[in-house]
């Protein structure tokens, strides 16, 4: 096919630059906003998703993990006695006060778990180990928050709620959605750091026996353990994400910003493709006059839109990779998994196709007799 679409697109280099800038801006904005949304939602439920538990026992009507109320640890034994339960452990995720070496204070979220098993523990450990937490006053902190908490080296000792806390290891990439970093420690230490009585717990993590239906186990627990909510990990994760993303409006704001990026992209590309179409209107009229069906003319316009989409996306995703990488060095969590990159390519194509619709409408109404006007 004679390269009419490509030649027309590249004929006006300045207009092409404007088109590509618009698409690049839209792609970057959508990537950042959707990436933030994904990062936020992943972060809000990070503790739940990495707990390696099948079920969570929490206080009644808990809306999200940070709002878990305390209940008696006796429920742990009721849980363990329920048929289908392979193991159950107490778990805490509560806020505490961290004192920095310079005298300042920071809010932290203490995560206490049974270090003799795997449920509820940290992940992505880069120095130290879970076994090191068995030593007195031991804690693990993510390296992202060292500067914020005034940590300079392993072995450093701090004060939390009047108790000693000694940094024995670090993780990497465990972000807290709130501004309070996670501090992993034993359940006993966590009780001290968060002023819990010895007979209290905030959650109970449950692992089912192999082959046991989760729904059945959930039902069994609900019938045996009262005044608590029994939630699967998936349910609790989704509730927590929904609360932070939509009930608070944070997620809606981010999604609206992504939508805005798409709208801006559509407007810019519509304008430039339309201007290009108007510049070449006589050619389209000639095509129609010599017998081209409307579909041929549409194909030329859509090819221009498609080429713009591919080039703009390539530029946009390249810029986005730098932005995502830079954000991850900082405090923001912007995720760009490959399915999302593919989705955004589809959105870019859609955006440019919609933008071409105005031009297509114009040439549809074009009277081929216009070619006879000199």
């Amino acid at each position, binding site marked *: 096919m004679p390269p009419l679409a490509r030649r027309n697109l590249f004929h006006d280099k300045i207009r092409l630059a404007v088109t590509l800038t618009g698409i690049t801006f839209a792609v970057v904005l959508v990537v950042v906003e959707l990436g933030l949304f994904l990062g936020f939602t992943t972060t809000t439920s990070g503790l739940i998703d990495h707990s390696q538990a099948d079920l969570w026992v929490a206080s009644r009507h808990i809306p999200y993990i940070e709002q878990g109320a305390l209940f008696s640890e006796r429920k742990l034994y009721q849980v363990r006695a329920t048929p289908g339960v392979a193991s159950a452990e107490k778990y805490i995720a509560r806020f505490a006060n961290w004192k920095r070496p310079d005298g300042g204070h920071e809010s932290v979220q203490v995560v206490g778990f049974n270090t003799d098993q795997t449920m509820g523990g940290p992940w992505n450990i880069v120095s130290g180990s879970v076994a090191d937490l068995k030593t007195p006053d031991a804690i693990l902190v993510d390296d992202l928050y060292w500067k914020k908490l005034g940590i300079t080296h392993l072995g450093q000792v701090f004060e939390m709620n009047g108790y000693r806390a000694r940094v024995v290891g670090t993780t990497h990439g465990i972000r807290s959605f709130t501004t309070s970093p996670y501090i992993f420690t034993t359940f006993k230490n966590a009780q001290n750091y968060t002023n819990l009585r010895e007979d209290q717990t905030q959650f109970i993590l449950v692992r089912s026996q192999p082959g046991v239906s989760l729904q059945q186990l959930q039902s069994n627990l609900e019938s045996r353990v009262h005044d608590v909510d029994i939630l699967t990990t998936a349910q609790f994760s989704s509730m927590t994400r929904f609360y932070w993303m939509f009930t608070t409006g944070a997620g809606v704001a981010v999604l609206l910003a992504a939508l805005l990026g798409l709208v801006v992209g559509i407007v810019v590309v519509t304008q430039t493709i339309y201007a290009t179409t108007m510049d070449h209107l006589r050619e389209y009229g*000639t095509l129609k*006059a010599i*017998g081209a069906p409307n579909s041929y003319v549409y194909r030329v316009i859509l090819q221009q839109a498609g080429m713009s989409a591919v080039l703009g996306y390539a530029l946009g995703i390249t810029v986005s990779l730098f932005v995502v990488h830079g954000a991850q060095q900082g405090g923001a969590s912007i995720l760009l998994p490959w399915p999302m990159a593919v989705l955004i390519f589809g959105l870019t194509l859609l955006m440019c196709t919609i933008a071409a619709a105005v031009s297509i409408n114009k040439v549809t109404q074009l009277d081929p007799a216009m070619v006879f006007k000199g």
Partner: protein
Amino acid sequence: MEVAVRVRGVTKTYAERAARVTALEGVDLDLHKGELLFLMGPSGSGKTTLLSIMGCILRATSGSLQVAGQEITGLSERELPRVRLSHIGFVFQAFNLFPTLTAVENVEVALELKGIRGALARRQALSLLEQVHLDDKASAFPADLSGGQKQRVALARALAGNPEILLADEPTAALDSHTGRSVLELMRQLAHDHNRAVAVVTHDSRIADLGDRVVRIEDGTISSVRNLRQPEPALVHSIPLSHSDLQTTTARPL
């Protein structure tokens, strides 16, 4: 000669708000294969309107139109492009070439519309450019061509797919007289040598002698038709007359 386009009782009226303008009224015309027909007349007389109707670009308000034996009047708007594509080639006053395509690519577009692609399209396009004596300019862009050369490319494009009808609207208006004449000579050759029906709208009376017929249109109607190729009445050779002959009172047979 076989009729390629038959126009009967064609009227074209434009209605815009309260005003009605009749561009053509009751026009009858046949365009034959193998002939070069000129449509002449003053500006606004309806020449281009008639050409547009013959080319199935405009629809007549009333009357009938046959193209290549096919009745066009009842066809829908969607079917008209197919008729144009199958039977008619167009040449425009402003050339209407695609400026971002080379000469050969301009012709290839027309071939592609007729389903001819790839290497075959390239060969045919080059052959058509050769026909119009422009094969050495195949890779040139329109901006690099003279007016006459552009019109030749346009002609080659119009010939893509070997249509039996060629319609040209003021093809020499943007050309100097010498170049314009050479373009029309080419069109005459296309008509005579390839049995094509060629109709040309022009207001240049200097090139009228190139045509086979000149149809004059004024105020939307055909005012005269002059057949330039019918044999002239036999010339009267000089006959020596005697004085007595001059005195003859009755007409003598020639």
